Structures are given as structure tokens and as C-alpha cells.
């Protein structure tokens, strides 16, 4: 689906790189959990994969040179609060290269997928945090993406909404979507992802099948939880 090789990116005016030779493979029907402490480079990696930032070195390529449709669920609620849920969806759908009739189909589809029918005509600023999180994901689904990049999509939601969102992501993976799921919640990675990419200071510390990494396949030690694995690699010191 998408292969990243040796990605290196340094922000203007910064001396140390935010990404330092990151390799990543995203496959159809698989979800990769992107883990790392604050400032480890997760959001920068997502920005580079989206094309919002151009890496100074390294490359992104797709097998067969067919560029996948990539959609992004940002950590922020990237919505227009003055507009209703439907108006938000219709606006973002209008940004896609779709005929007008198809745009309406995609909006209805996204509303149904994220259970937003009840709130469709409600101003998004008056909706609960959980509804807005669902709308945030619904906007990404408009593109029917081959690859979905989720950046901490469940921040600040109740367990019910979290369960719903995780089930939606699992359903997408089952339907063949490639997913990169960045989060600080280990249990979400365990629930959704079959592989992980653990980063710190722009470098990849661990990458592979979740079960294999926990078992310590190869030379590595075994861990009784993902959090233990995370702390082992990233140490206990506080970050930015």
C-alpha cells in the first residue's frame, strides 16, 4: 500500500531531526499502532505521509506506483463549529474530486457509518465531545480511503464512544483499509492493531508484529504487556 524508506525531516530552525531515518510499511487490511512519547515524531511522520511536510531525504512509494487514497483523522477536532454536522461533511466532500451526486452519497454513507443521523442537522459546536469525535472520523471516511491515518482519535471521549470508534476502525481494517493508528492508549493498540511502530526522538525503536514483540521473538526480551515494552524502550524520563 505505502512504503516509507529512510524518512528524515528537520523542522526549519531546528538542529535535531524530528524524523531520523524512519522506515515503515503499511499494508492493505492491516493496522499499525504508532507509539511513542510526546515529541517522539508521530505527528511529524503522519504529516510527511500526508504530504503536508516534504522530507529532506528518504522516499515514499507505492507498489505498482498507484498512489493510495489517504485520509487523516487529526488529533484536533478539525471541523467548523458554526456549521452543522451535515454541512461540515458536505463541505469537505466538495473538496474531493467527486461528482456532486457522488458527494451526497458519500455524506450519507459517512453519517450512517458514524451513527450521526440524529445529529446531522445540529450545529457541531452544540454536539457532545463524543459526537464531534465521530464527525471528525466521518470526514475522513468521505474519501473511502485506502489508507487511514488516525492521530489520537479517542482523546477525551467516554468508554461507549471509544468502543464505537475502535469497532469502526476494526471494521475498516476488515474491509481492507490500511490503518496507521497513533495513540498513547496501549489497550487501543492491542484492540485494533496487529503490528506496532515504536518511535522516540525521531527514530524507530521497535517495529514488528505485536505478539512477536511481546514474546520477545528474536533476540529481544519478553514483556507481559505493551506498556512494559513501551517503557523498556523509551525509559522513564519525562518528555516535552
Amino acid at each position, binding site marked *: 500500500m505505502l512504503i516509507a524508506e529512510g524518512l528524515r525531516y528537520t523542522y526549519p530552525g531546528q538542529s535535531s531531526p524530528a524524523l531520523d531515518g524512519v522506515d515503515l510499511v503499511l499494508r492493505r487490511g492491516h493496522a499499525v499502532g504508532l507509539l511513542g512519547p510526546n515529541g517522539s515524531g508521530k505527528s511529524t511522520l503522519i*504529516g510527511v505521509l500526508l504530504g*503536508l511536510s516534504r522530507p529532506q531525504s528518504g522516499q515514499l512509494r507505492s507498489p505498482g506506483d498507484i498512489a493510495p487514497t489517504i485520509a487523516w483523522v487529526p488529533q484536533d*477536532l478539525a471541523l467548523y*463549529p*458554526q456549521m452543522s454536522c451535515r454541512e461540515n461533511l458536505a463541505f469537505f466532500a466538495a473538496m474531493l474530486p467527486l461528482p456532486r451526486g457522488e458527494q451526497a452519497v458519500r455524506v450519507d454513507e459517512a453519517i450512517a457509518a458514524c451513527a450521526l443521523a440524529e445529529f446531522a442537522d445540529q450545529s457541531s459546536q452544540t454536539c457532545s465531545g463524543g459526537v464531534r469525535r465521530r464527525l471528525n472520523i466521518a470526514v475522513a471516511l468521505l474519501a473511502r480511503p485506502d489508507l487511514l491515518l488516525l492521530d489520537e482519535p479517542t482523546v477525551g471521549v467516554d468508554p461507549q464512544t471509544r468502543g464505537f470508534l475502535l469497532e469502526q476502525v476494526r471494521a475498516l481494517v476488515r474491509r481492507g483499509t490500511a490503518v496507521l493508528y497513533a495513540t498513547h492508549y496501549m489497550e487501543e493498540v492491542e484492540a485494533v492493531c496487529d503490528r506496532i511502530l515504536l518511535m522516540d526522538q525521531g527514530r524507530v525503536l521497535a517495529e514488528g508484529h505485536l505478539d512477536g514483540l511481546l514474546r520477545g521473538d528474536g533476540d529481544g526480551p519478553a514483556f507481559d504487556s505493551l506498556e512494559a515494552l513501551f517503557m523498556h524502550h523509551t525509559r522513564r524520563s519525562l518528555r516535552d
Partner: protein
Amino acid sequence: MLSLRQALSIAAKEWLLLRRNPHGLAVLFLMPAAFVLVMSFALKDTLTAHVDMPATGWVVEDRSPVAEHWAREWQTRHGMLRLDDRGALHAALRERRVQAGIVVATGWLDGDAGPRADRVELWLGHPVQPASAARLRAELSFSMLQVRMKMAASAAGPFASVLLSEVGNEELQPTAAAVQVRYLHEIDSGRRMTAVQQSVPAWLVFGMFFVVIPIAGVLIQERRDGTLPRLQSLGVGAAALLGGKWLAFTALNWVQLGFMLLVGRWLVPAFGGDALSLDLSIGWFLVMVAATSAAAVGLALLIAAWTRAFDHAAALGSGINVLLGALAGVMVPRMLMPPTMQTLSEHSPMAWALDGMQTVFLGAPDAAQIVPKALLLVIFGGLCLTGAWWGMRRRGSRH
């Protein structure tokens, strides 16, 4: 094609957001309308050649019969309030029963040498306009000259004295008020500059430049909430983003225009002011509005693209607009500025807009008057838009 469709959708979204932003609409419509109304009355007599004489109170300390005669003559000619002493005069000024006071001090009549100007004091209350004060001084000087002439005639002999007293007041009336003052633009249009004719284009231009408030509001909200990078991730480029906003706010400028014309044509007269004359050269008018809009929206986008917070953009945008407006003669007409300030004001984009607009509003403009101003505005708008585009791209690459 996709970029154009994206730009149109962004423009439609801007209108939707604007309709739901009553504060932004108030800044764009009510503020300039209120200013037109207020300034049309505040400047009512400032822009006309006619200057009213202020109501005066007189204190005659000089006990000579000539002084008494002079005061009576003034009373007949202009009317006045006769007061006993300076204290009474000061009280009348403070209470605004009179606007100006004249004290004919002891020693005013210097024997055969005649009246002494340095023994006349002119007191002015706060509300007296400089032009009215100047007219009062001129009338006083002339009136004293008349006294001097009569005294000279009296000294010359009985015949001259009688002759002069017969023709007296009527023939020696000051003639300044009868002189017809004409402005150059009347040659072409026959139209006179009135306060409403000055205020509507001035505050229309000012209001058009205030699109910086809603533009910055939306753009900074988009950056803060993450919708801007989200749009960029959907393949929306800086050109479509800026183009959509440009379209929306240019259209808004045209709505402002319609609203301000209504205010000048119907609201100001409803309050007793002059009506705005709409006998305009439509073609040149549209050229000037389009060019002004290009400059206004370009500057607003530039400020919005390079500021981080709405507070900064609002303060910077308002400050720049007020400064450009003051320089351009929006608040105080340029004709009332000293020559140095008038020269300086020629460097304000609002002055280019205002000059062109007023030329249109005064009737019969031609290409030589309009095209250079319109070109300057379009170039200014283009440079601002380029700066905004650069700023958007720069911020986009820093995501």
C-alpha cells in the same frame, strides 16, 4: 478545474460562516453606516463655501459715542446680545447663550486717530468652528474700517459726511458673502460637494477594508482548529484557499456597497441631511469598487496569513486601517489637512480609493482620473495577495 470548484465551495462556506457571525457583520455594515450618518451631519457646513456667523455678545467698555454707535450698527446688521461687563460675557459663553464675545475696551477710540484694533478683544466659546471665527474677525475688521472711513469723511467736511451717512450701511456692506464660490468639478458635473457626498465613499472604502476582521477570524480559526491542514491533506492548495476567500469577500464588498448607497440615499435624508446623488458614471464606479475591493481583500488576506492569533490580526488590521483611513482623509477630509499631510496622504491605498470614488461621486470622471488610481489599487492588492500566498505556503510547510 478541481481547484476552481474547491475555491467556489470555500467561498460558499465563507458566506455561510459570515451569515452566522453577527459581530463580524456589524463591523462591516453597521459601523460604516453609523459613521456615514454621524459624519454627514458633523461635516455638514465644513464642505460648503457658506459659513455662518457665530452669535455674539458685546461688552462696550469704551464710553465714547463712536463706540456706542458702532455697537448699535453691529446690532442692526448682525444682531447681538448686549452685556454689562466681562463677567456677564464669560457667563454667557459658558452657558452657550453666545458663541463669541467682543469686548470694546476702554481707549478703543484713540481721539482723531480713530479706532484701535488692539483695544478690541474677541472671545470664543468652544463650539465655534475656525471658519466661523475667521468670518467674525473679517467682519470686525471691515466694520472698524467702516468706522474709520466715516470718521475721515466727517473730518473732510459736511458734504462728504452727509453723503457717506446717507449711503452708509447698505453700500458699505461686506461683499464676501455674495461672492459665488465654485469648485472645479462643477464645470463637468454641476454637482456640489456635500457632507454626504464625501462621507459615503469615505466610509464605504473604510468599511471595505475592514473585511480583515472576518477574514482573519476564519483563517486563524482554521489554523487553530486544524481544518486548514485537513484541507491541505485533501489536496486543497493555497491558491484555492485564498481564491475562495477572495471570491467570498469581494462579493461581500459589493453587498457593502449596496448597503452604503442605501444609507446615503435614504437614511441620511430621513434624518434631515442631504441625499446622496446617485447620478454616477456606472462604468467608472464599478472599476473603482472592483479595484478597491482587490486592495482591501488582498490586505486583509496578507494580515490574516501572517498573524498567529485573532487578537493580533484584529489589532493589527484595525490599527492599519485606521491609520490608512486617517491619512486618506476618511475621518478628516483631505482638503482640511495642511499641504504636507495632503502630500503624505497620497501614499495611502485608501486615499487612492477615496480619490477615485469621490471623482466618480462628483460626476463626469474620465480615464485619466480613474485608471491610475485603480491600477495602483490592483497592484497593491496583487502584491498583498502574493505575500499572503507565500505566508500560507510557508506555514503549510511547517506543519
